[in-house]
């Protein structure tokens, strides 16, 4: 099954590259409007980021990032269809045009930016790689992990960071590489590995999936920088700008105190920043090729960044992640969006 999927993705890439380059010169925005929905690539199940609930509705911070773009384009956050992808399939799916944007806790790196024909349109979660271990094993720090067997997901930056970290510390380890994060959890619970490594947010999510979450703990070490964000194809600057600025609008809205609850009142605000944000003044929308009130639609339908965070990964969710560095720059975090003007 996995094999078939990868082959299919590869074949799709070959076939799509055969199509004349005119097809790709056409604007993604027009193509999305014509289809009537946004096709968005997400994970195949990661609590807090993208996971279907009991009723089959996708939820998560990555999912909301897609919905915000749909709200900006259509004024309707439901005009999205989701394509679940493994880490291995994600870039091929985007390159081949199978999806319009990728929002799948994907780390922004130079190689990915420069050699895959893709652009990262910002960061919707600042993460770092950590270790999940069984409490019974009696390890408090990652430097005690020499010789450990480690479960890991294939095709991630995590695989490289792990190798670098152990090499730098002069320790050895045995990697067990699985296709999906589900399988890494299975391997971890079956006792195949001592340690599960991934981005810290993912570890919190995966830990909540364990039969007994209290039996495992996350080590304090963070061994890498993992800025996660939405990705689009290179060569369509308009679409790149739309995805980038929808996220910026959400962050600016939090900074300006605009929420989905008060956005209708805020339409009457005489703060020029809020007026530009919601489209009551200026022509910010048409500069991007969108309706003037795209900012209003995003906040009304999906909410600002803070709401998105609290709803999906915040302290009141099973993941229980504090804002930490993902707080606004005004609150001691590093979240800082360029101004809407």
């Amino acid at each position, binding site marked *: *099954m*996995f*094999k078939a999927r*990868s*082959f299919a*993705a*590869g074949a799709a*890439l*070959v076939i799509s*590259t*055969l*199509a004349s*380059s005119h097809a*790709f010169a056409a604007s993604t925005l027009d193509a999305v409007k014509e289809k009537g929905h946004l096709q968005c690539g997400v994970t195949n199940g990661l609590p807090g980021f993208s996971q279907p609930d009991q009723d089959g509705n996708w939820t998560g911070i990555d999912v909301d990032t897609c919905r915000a773009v749909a709200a900006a384009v259509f004024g309707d956050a439901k005009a999205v269809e989701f394509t679940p992808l493994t*880490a*291995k399939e994600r*870039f*091929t799916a985007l*390159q081949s045009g199978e999806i319009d944007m990728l929002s799948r806790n994907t780390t922004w790196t130079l*190689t*990915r930016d420069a*050699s*895959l*024909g893709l652009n990262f349109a910002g960061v919707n979660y600042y993460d770092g790689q950590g270790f999940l271990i069984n409490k019974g*094993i009696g390890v408090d720090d990652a430097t005690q*992990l*020499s*010789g*450990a*067997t480690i479960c890991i997901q*294939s*095709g*991630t930056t995590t*695989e*490289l960071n*792990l*190798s*670098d970290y*152990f*090499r730098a510390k002069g320790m050895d*380890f*045995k*990697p*067990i*590489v*699985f*296709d999906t994060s589900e*399988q890494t959890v*299975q*391997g971890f619970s*079956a*006792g*195949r590995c*001592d340690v599960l490594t991934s981005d810290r947010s993912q570890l919190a999510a995966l830990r909540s999936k364990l039969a007994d979450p209290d039996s495992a703990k996350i080590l304090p070490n963070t061994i890498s920088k993992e800025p996660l964000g939405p990705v689009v*194809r*290179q*060569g369509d600057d308009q679409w790149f700008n739309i995805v980038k600025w929808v996220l910026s609008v959400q962050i600016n809205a939090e900074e300006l105190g605009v929420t989905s609850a008060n956005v209708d009142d805020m339409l009457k605000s005489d703060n020029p920043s809020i007026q530009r944000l919601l489209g009551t003044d200026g022509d910010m929308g048409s500069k991007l090729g969108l309706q003037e009130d795209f900012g209003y639609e995003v906040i009304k339908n999906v909410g600002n960044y803070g709401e998105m965070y609290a709803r999906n990964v915040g302290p009141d969710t099973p993941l229980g992640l504090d804002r930490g560095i993902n707080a606004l720059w005004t609150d001691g975090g590093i979240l800082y969006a360029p101004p809407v003007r």
Partner: protein
Amino acid sequence: MKKQTIESSPAGPRPWYDPRVRSIFFQIVAIALVAWGGWTLVDNTLSNMESRGISTGFGFLDESAGFAIIMHLVPYDATMSYGRTFWVGLTNTLLVSAMGIVAATILGFIIGVARLSNNWLVAKISLVYIEVIRNIPLLLQIFFWYFAVLSNLPSPRQSVDVGGAVFLNNRGLYLPEPLTQDGFGLVWAAIIIAIAAVAGLKIWARKRQLATGEIFPTFKVGVAILVLLPVVAYASAGQPLEWDIPALKGFNFGGGITLIPELAALWIALSLYTASFIAEIVRSGILSVSKGQTEAAKALGLPNGLSLRLVVIPQAMRVIIPPLTSQYLNLVKNSSLATAIGYPDLVAVFMGTTLNQTGQAVEVVAITMAVYLTISLLISLFMNIYNRAVAIKER
């Protein structure tokens, strides 16, 4: 004069009415179309990938890979190149395929023969085995052997201990590793001499049988030579072998040879699954030999074992070999399901991690497909050579 010649020789049709010329012409056109199609495919792919800023070419094979692989038959560490990860993946694929082919063949022949047994219980057990195993998807069987068996094994600290040298836990099977010391060359020499001696013995015994009709117990004597000669050499060279015995260090056992559970699960699943198909092929092969052949062998006074070995099986092989070849090919291709349980085969390592870290899907997928094609064609070639050897010789 000239006119006469034309009239006297039967005037052939004009070139465009000549069937021979026509057929050559259309073949050239067909080849040109295929070549043009292929070239357009490659050229379009390359230029479109370039226009979209996707890196192309095989330069990435020399870049440093930077990730670790749990099991490698060729030397490997994270500082080596992506090209090396290809060899690691390939050798792991070949290892599990070879192990699977050997085990599936042996098991398949045993079950196939058992299926025809006169013993009701043995025949029915084989029947149930075949019907159950071959009707469950292979991927499920791999998961079963991996997760069902894995979760029943103890953790490293509670390992099953066999004589303080062999350990079994959910991280794998740990065996002592023989380390050859100075003087082991003598043992190697003894092994080579023993093999040569057995080969000579076989030729001599056959000549003698043809001349006198007397049968020499080649098998028993051969085994004796193969075992005794190296043992004597080993003892006289002062036992030049030391054992690296696995020991619990920190998280896990270190030293010795490790058989990782991923390999074991994949091997077991592939072998059992393919054996069920091979068993049916063997049964059909044996049934294809007419009863008259067995009766004739009996009439000549051949005992059961000999009539099976000399009369039935050689004829059955003619029916068995061709479908057996496709089972071998299936097994090799099915080994790519390894990626589901994290066994580092070619698809998992090269078409998985390497593809992802480099993003060069077209090149990596093309290489991988070419490798499977090559392996399959090679197996076909060898099996066809073998098939020609056992096929009916028409004189």
